[in-house]
């Protein structure tokens, strides 16, 4: 009888744990994982909030490294979300975490595609609306799209030698018509509309197409400038002379009010803590790199080739055809055209 009683207890405990686990998974869906206490609290809508780990008020750290793009990985082994998607998920996770009072976004990026940068800015706005203070910390560089993201934050901290700016939009295409003529290749193109093959590499661009793309670029540029103007509280008239694609050092950017202060990542974390009203040195919740992801990244670094947008713009490819094929059709980007920053 005693045995039956104890075994029943054990089974209830274990089956209960399995049921809770399944409920967590059902609630979780495709979102990145959190501690099961956090998730459990969500499942029961706060009824079990006492189970939350007692880490206290914290500063969350998110890293925006490399080209910012939603583009799927072209690596052989990479099976995890990266780039803009990862940043968005981390921002969501930190926004939902009640312990996180401020977020520091460490940026080391030459820029990225328009859509992905704007999605990240939207997440920053949502975090701010949820009462979190957001501080950007510029590492080596925050060019173009990287600076777009930084300008959406409450404050920007940059090292004196960090490079930033490059406010502008660029779109790059290659005209290989003469090369193809030379080697005797001709393309048969059947298209539904006049501009369906705009920026095609097999022919030169017409004047009308050039104007179309210029209008597109200027539209994105205006969005960029007004976002920076709003975020940094700099009148557009003052900003426009700085927004011609030029780059600035941290010190120069401070003079031009493009950044708020000079300092390291640690200074940015402390500043975020101050803004959020955390006394003393704040606890930092760092981005977690799962062991499997680390393993796949290692494999990819060893065997795969994952070209960034900067590689594509700079043409770090074996052939012009490969270069054009990887760029994609008419991809506008907030990007500083250099090979560095990966």
């Amino acid at each position, binding site marked *: 009888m005693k*045995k*039956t009683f104890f*075994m029943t207890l054990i089974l209830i405990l274990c089956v209960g744990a*399995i049921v809770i*686990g399944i409920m967590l*998974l059902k609630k979780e869906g495709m979102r990145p994982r959190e501690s*099961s206490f956090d998730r459990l609290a969500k499942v029961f809508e706060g009824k079990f909030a006492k189970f939350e780990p007692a880490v206290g008020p914290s500063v969350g750290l998110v890293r925006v490294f490399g080209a910012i793009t939603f583009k799927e990985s072209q690596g052989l082994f990479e099976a995890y979300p990266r780039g803009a998607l990862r940043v968005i998920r981390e921002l969501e996770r930190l926004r939902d975490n009640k312990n996180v009072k401020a977020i520091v976004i460490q940026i080391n990026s030459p820029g990225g595609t328009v859509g992905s940068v704007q999605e990240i800015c939207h997440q920053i706005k949502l975090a701010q609306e949820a009462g979190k203070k957001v501080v950007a910390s510029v590492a080596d560089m925050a060019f173009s799209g990287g600076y777009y993201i930084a300008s959406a934050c409450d404050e920007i901290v940059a090292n004196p030698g960090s490079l930033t700016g490059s406010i502008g939009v660029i779109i790059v295409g290659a005209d290989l018509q003469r090369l193809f003529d030379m080697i005797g290749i001709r393309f048969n193109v059947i298209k539904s509309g006049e501009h369906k093959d705009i920026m095609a590499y097999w022919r030169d661009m017409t004047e009308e197409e050039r104007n179309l793309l210029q209008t597109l670029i200027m539209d994105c540029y205006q969005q960029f400038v007004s976002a920076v103007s709003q975020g940094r509280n700099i009148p557009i008239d003052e900003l426009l002379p700085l927004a011609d694609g030029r780059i600035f050092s941290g010190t120069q950017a401070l003079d031009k009010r493009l950044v708020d202060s000079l300092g390291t990542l640690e200074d940015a974390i402390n500043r975020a803590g101050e803004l959020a009203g955390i006394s003393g040195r704040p606890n930092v919740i760092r981005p977690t790199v799962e062991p499997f*992801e680390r393993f796949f990244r290692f494999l990819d670094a060893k065997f795969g080739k994952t070209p960034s947008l900067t590689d594509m713009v700079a043409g770090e490819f074996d052939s012009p055809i490969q270069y054009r094929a990887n760029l994609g059709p008419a991809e506008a980007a907030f990007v500083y055209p250099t090979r560095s920053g990966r």
Partner: protein
Amino acid sequence: MQNEFSLPYENMPSLRRPEGRLAILYDQLTSPKKAVQALSERRPYGLAFFVIALSVLSRVTAGLISPSCAGTFGGVSLFVLLCMGQLIITLVFIVIAASVYHFAATNEDKLGDVRVLFLLIAVCFLPDIFLAPVAILTNGLPFGAGMAVFAGVGVGLWVWIFVLQIVAVKNYYEISGGRSFLAVILPFILMGVLVFGFFLMVFAYIMISMKNILG
């Protein structure tokens, strides 16, 4: 009343009356020798499948919510898929293990029913049911500590299951501990060799492909 025709287990007070299935499971955790005797006499195949199902559920749940999990991509659909996969793998493992243990034991001229051995090995997976609660508890710990505790408990449970299998083979076939250890370890060695060979082939294939792609 005991007489010269009484069977040995009839003298044992705890086994005079057939025990409930839950009591057998409790014995499996606390005194496996007694559980082996009861299981081999009563042959509760339903109980064996119940234990397998529960251990698979617990293992998969723990795998998806533990601190070492790579992410819950897929949610419940992945859970169902993993459960099915794990169930098949566990059943295949039990069939292979039971066959190999039986083969090893009968080589020693010991008699036994391979179906009972199948049942005994299946019930040996009972400690796996503790994985799910451990995974939930360790998630509350800091990442490193959580992973360490979960991995430690995982290894501990694996060793426990391994020991239960040795006890099952030893008591069912009435062979020595050393021989039953050898019988139990043999399928692991075989599986290890097979898995190593498989990965070696995959790695060789990748390397050859890399050479072709990268020139």
